[in-house]
């Protein structure tokens, strides 16, 4: 009986049958994501048509018909020619360094390497020696960078700021702006929420003044009006004027972002900090700010990206940031042509995009990392 019975009982599990072709693989993915409903099907078709309409001409302009080599405009004015990359190639070092003297450009490179060497380990949480690293990046590096870029000591020839330009100038303005506006913004935000009337009034007036005027006005005042007030023969550096303007301007925006974070912290946190006997600065540093800043990371990065892109406004006061130096090279009669401006703008846009997207990627990473149990 048992012999007969066992021969009909499976010893192994039946092998799983493959899923129906409509539930796996490319077809299923397509059905689920692109053709799940009549509306989605229509949208998919419209998008596909749009891509087919835009991408091939774009690719042929940017890649297939593009002119990659050439000595001057003759190469790029051939009929049906696409982007004039030869122009970007010929001007590339100018786009990066501006008019910085060619034999001194190693100083800019070295500054860049030092900056990367300081920032990258600081940005990666796993790397040890954070304190030493922060001291280097925040205190030693600015001095080194100034000495290297400006010179005038240790036998380095002085390179005046009017020669600075290109991506290097964009980064100088952006980094100085970011490095000063963040701490200044935090202080202003604390000041605005302070109980002390004078500090509060000063902060409010400062923030509202700088938020109320356009950056272009600030730059114009700094470059056109200020020299008239100063006695004749006293000039102070145009770049310095722009840096101060940009920093103060963005610190006002930063202050409001940080204030948003401070207001989002429940009152209980303030009271708890007081209850364990922490003074004002201690409670801010240890309890409130770490939480507040974490909440407003998207806002802070938003402001920083805005600041980075605003740096190109300095072109209206005759400083040649990346965009301005690209534009000023359109006037070079050796390269003027129908495709030169478009190519230059595409190049400038790509460089800006790389930096801004980089900042935004890092901020998303930090948000995920600091997300300590707030997600429900």
């Amino acid at each position: 009986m048992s012999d007969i019975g066992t021969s009909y009982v499976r010893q192994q599990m039946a092998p799983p049958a493959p899923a129906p072709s409509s539930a796996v693989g490319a077809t299923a993915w397509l059905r689920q994501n692109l053709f799940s409903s009549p509306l989605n099907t229509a949208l998919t078709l419209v998008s596909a048509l749009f891509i087919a309409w835009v991408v091939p001409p774009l690719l042929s302009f940017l890649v297939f018909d593009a002119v990659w080599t050439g000595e001057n405009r003759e190469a790029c004015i051939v009929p049906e020619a696409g982007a004039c990359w030869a122009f970007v190639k010929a001007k590339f070092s100018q786009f990066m360094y501006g008019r910085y003297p060619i034999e001194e450009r190693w100083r800019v490179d070295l500054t860049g390497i030092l900056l990367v060497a300081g920032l990258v380990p600081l940005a990666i949480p796993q790397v040890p020696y954070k304190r030493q690293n922060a001291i280097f990046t925040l205190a030693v590096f600015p001095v080194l960078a100034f000495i290297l870029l400006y010179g005038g000591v240790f036998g380095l020839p002085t390179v005046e700021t009017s020669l600075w330009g290109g991506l290097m100038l964009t980064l100088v303005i952006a980094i100085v702006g970011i490095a000063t506006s963040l701490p200044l913004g935090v202080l202003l935000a604390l000041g605005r929420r302070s109980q002390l009337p004078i500090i509060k009034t000063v902060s409010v007036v400062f923030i509202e003044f700088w938020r109320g005027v356009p950056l272009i006005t600030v730059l114009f005042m700094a470059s056109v009006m200020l020299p008239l007030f100063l006695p004749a023969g006293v000039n102070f550096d145009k770049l310095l004027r722009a840096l101060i303007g940009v920093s103060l301007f963005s610190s006002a925006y930063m202050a409001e972002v940080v204030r948003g974070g401070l207001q989002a912290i429940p009152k209980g946190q303030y009271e708890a900090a007081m209850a364990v006997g922490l003074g004002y600065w201690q409670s801010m540093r240890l309890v409130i700010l770490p939480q507040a800043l974490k909440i407003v990371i998207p806002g802070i990065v938003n402001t920083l990206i805005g600041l980075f892109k605003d740096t190109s406004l300095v072109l209206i006061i005759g400083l040649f940031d990346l965009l301005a130096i690209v534009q000023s090279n359109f006037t070079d009669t050796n390269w003027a042509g129908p495709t030169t401006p478009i190519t230059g703008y595409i190049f400038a846009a790509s460089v800006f995009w790389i930096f801004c997207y980089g900042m935004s990627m890092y901020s998303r990473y930090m948000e995920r990392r600091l997300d300590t149990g707030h997600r429900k």
Partner: protein
Amino acid sequence: MLDRSWKSVALGAAFVMGSAVAGSAATLDTVKSKGFVQCGASTGLAGFSEPDDAGNWKGLDADYCRAIAAAVFGDATKVKYTPLTAKERFTALQSGEVDVLIRNTTWTMSRDTSMGMIFAGVNYYDGQGFIVKKSVGVSSAKELNGATACVQTGTTTELNLSDYFKTNGMEYQPVVVEKDDEAIAAYEAGRCDVYTTDASGLYASRLKFANPDDHVVLPEIISKEPLGPVVRQGDEQWLNIVKWTHNAMLAAEELGVTQANVDEMKATENPDIKRLLGADGTFGESLGLSNDWAYNIVKQVGNYGEVFDRNVGTGSPLNIERGLNALWTDGGLQYAPPIR
């Protein structure tokens, strides 16, 4: 370094006090003590001040800066450029940030009389012109009756255009655009029959057309835009240096002295050339310079014709005819008073 900067602060303070008393210190002295000429340039204008591949300034205006440096120091490289936007340029000159402004600036009466500055000459006679497609078959602006014209808004160009058509009893349809590039695009797309702006700008725009040879700049010039170097009022010595740098370049062209033959010309018996190149007389010294000032200009920068051809003329992609900028001997307006 520290020591030097303190000195310069003290010097600056002394200068401020001194200038309060003496009106203004001699620009030549400050230029000589700095060791370079600080020249106000544009932020980029084809043929006048534009960057080359290495980032150096080149162009007609930039060469004038170099010529002044050659006259003062005997070294055309002792010049620093301050790129200035149109709005900043006069402040920069008035505040002493630049020693001379050579930035395609139009000489007008009010700028000479009420802004504390003075023009030292005209290095380029510009004026508003028209560009049309060759296929239209128009050869004179007088034939433009009923045309649509692309013009930049808010400029004197717009007013000149309307005046010109009114004076000649013609009708036109303006297509008003905000920026130069838009005007070019509108013109190329056929939204207007004719595009009007300063003639030098028309030639520069023509380079940006897909087929530059399909377009022609009409001969009529309907406004006067004399462009020239500007200095501060109240320093006649410096004004003379800038003015005579220009005149020496014109005289050199008129006398046939070029960058290539200036050394041979030095030995010539022609009294005009001898005076120009400093072999005879002390004309340089009376300017406060050395007597070979004009020799240095021609040797290092060139005469006016060479500078013109190299930057905007037939030797450049702009390919502008001399026209009004020819010497008076060739029917143009460029005329230098005699050096004697």
